[in-house]
């Protein structure tokens, strides 16, 4: 292929497709390259897609996109071995337009979304691995692929090649990720009749529930498990930092089996049948792990740029917003006719000024702190459970005595000052 494109986007996930869509819609000549058999074939997500950032690319997308259920209730379970403390919010404003978020199955969604970019004029090539960027005079001018004569040129190459981001690493934009900077997550899609989902999760058709599960679900390691309702299937998964997985010598697949057979979870899965098993990494290094984002003729977006807010399980929305911002920057650079790092740098500043930069900054020390101090997941979750059990078990003990017992259980071994320090430390990194 000897023709030259305005933009080559590497990777047809939410970030890459958002960028390709926006650029093509505004008249640029765009090539979108995907290594999978089809867009979505290599992509995994727990399953929550946020409405806001997607709507900014395709207004009212929910009227035609392949979505599962709009989430009307977000539950949080703090689990011990045979108990859990729970909290949740359910709101019917989320059951109607414009909705808040949806469960999705990515293989279907990503394919649909990439087709939308093609409708806007982008050229999509599947089954093609980009092996490296072509660099001339320290400027990225195209990509080399694993196809014969597979060199393709463009004014700008946008790297949306996902969490591993071998291409940005090769350019020296980041070092190899450390095991603390990624979370290893496994999940299963399990078939379940619509009626059973509605009954078990107390919802109607076209209403969904998301459940985030802490504590015993990861054996106290830094991470979470999740349970999301699709139309007639559920996604159940669990992940921890790769470092946590290694430190605790856990087998991810076993962790998932233990979760599925946990007495708090098992009744929800009764009769459900596994359809697919999936493993993937999530970039969870946060603010301090964001790589160099812009160079001469090149930009990095989405997971490849570590744009995930693990605390609020936001990622695909940041991917989409970053893809759109990158495309808008390229459009401006096109007017100037120059694609230098300086001309493309407004992508970086826009990103850091947006909710992405701000939210990632807000939690920049959270993951590191919770990993260094495993006390929160390992000890406070079981303590919370025992406190509730103590308080609500009627056994003739006076409530004041119960309260004293609970206080003592929290301060045992660490003192009041220790508890205060733990609380302060946690507050400081999420405030």
């Amino acid at each position, binding site marked *: 292929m000897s023709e030259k494109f305005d933009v080559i986007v590497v990777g047809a996930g939410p970030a890459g497709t958002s960028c390709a869509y926006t650029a093509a819609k505004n008249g640029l000549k765009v090539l979108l390259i995907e*290594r*999978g*058999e089809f867009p*979505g*074939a*290599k*992509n*995994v*997500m727990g*399953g929550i897609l946020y409405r806001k950032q997607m709507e900014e690319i395709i207004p009212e997308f929910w009227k035609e996109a392949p979505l599962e259920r709009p989430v009307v209730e977000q539950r949080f379970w703090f689990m011990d071995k045979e108990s859990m403390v729970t909290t949740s919010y359910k709101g019917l404003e989320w059951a109607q337009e414009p909705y808040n978020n949806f469960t999705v*199955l*990515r*293989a*279907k969604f990503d394919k649909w979304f990439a087709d939308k970019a093609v409708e806007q004029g982008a050229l999509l090539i*599947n*089954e*093609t*691995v980009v092996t490296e960027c072509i660099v001339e005079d320290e400027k990225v001018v195209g990509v080399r*692929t*694993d*196809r014969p004569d597979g060199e393709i040129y463009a004014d700008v190459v946008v790297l949306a090649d996902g*969490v*591993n981001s*071998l291409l940005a690493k090769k350019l020296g934009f980041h070092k*190899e*990720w*450390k*095991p603390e900077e*990624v979370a*290893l997550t*496994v*999940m*299963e*899609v399990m078939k379940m009749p619509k009626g059973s989902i509605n009954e078990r999760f107390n919802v109607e058709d076209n209403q969904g529930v998301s459940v985030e599960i802490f504590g015993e679900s990861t054996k106290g390691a830094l991470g979470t498990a999740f349970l999301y309702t699709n139309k007639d*299937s559920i*996604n159940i998964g669990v992940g921890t930092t*790769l470092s946590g*997985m*290694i430190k605790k*010598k*856990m*087998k*991810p*697949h076993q962790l998932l*089996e233990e979760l*599925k057979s946990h007495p708090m979870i098992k009744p929800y*899965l009764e009769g*459900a*049948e*596994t*359809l*697919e*098993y*999936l*493993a*993937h*990494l999530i970039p969870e290094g946060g603010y301090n792990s964001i790589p160099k984002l812009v160079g001469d003729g090149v930009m990095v977006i989405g997971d490849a740029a570590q744009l995930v807010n693990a605390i609020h399980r936001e990622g695909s929305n940041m991917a989409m917003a970053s893809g759109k911002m990158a495309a808008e920057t390229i459009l401006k650079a096109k007017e100037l006719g120059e694609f230098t790092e300086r001309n493309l740098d407004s992508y970086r500043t826009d990103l850091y000024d947006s909710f992405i930069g701000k939210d990632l900054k807000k939690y920049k020390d959270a993951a590191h702190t919770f990993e260094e101090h495993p006390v929160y997941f390992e000890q406070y979750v079981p303590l919370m459970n025992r406190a509730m059990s103590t308080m609500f078990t009627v056994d003739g003990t006076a409530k004041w005595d119960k309260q004293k017992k609970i206080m003592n259980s929290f301060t045992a071994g660490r003192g009041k000052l220790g508890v205060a320090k733990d609380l302060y430390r946690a507050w400081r990194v999420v405030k």
Partner: protein
Amino acid sequence: MAKTLEEKQYLVRFNCDTKSHLEVKDHDVCATKCPDKDCTIFCPADVYKWEGDRMFVGYEGCHECGSCRIGCPFDNIKWEYPKGGHGIVFRLA
């Protein structure tokens, strides 16, 4: 309910290449320097199996997550994407 990893892997579609995209750079390192062999534990698809004297790499069942490359304490795994269109094909999520 599928229980074993083998059963689950059967549910996944793989379009295997004839050539491995994963390679142990130096088998000596696994044999002599790495008593823990963490990759045989954390790999979500049990791609790595220690055969007593050598690391067996069952690349055909790889989910392409990248954990082994990042988690190997000796940076001893050469990790590439399978050829375009090959490797794992997720059909659902």
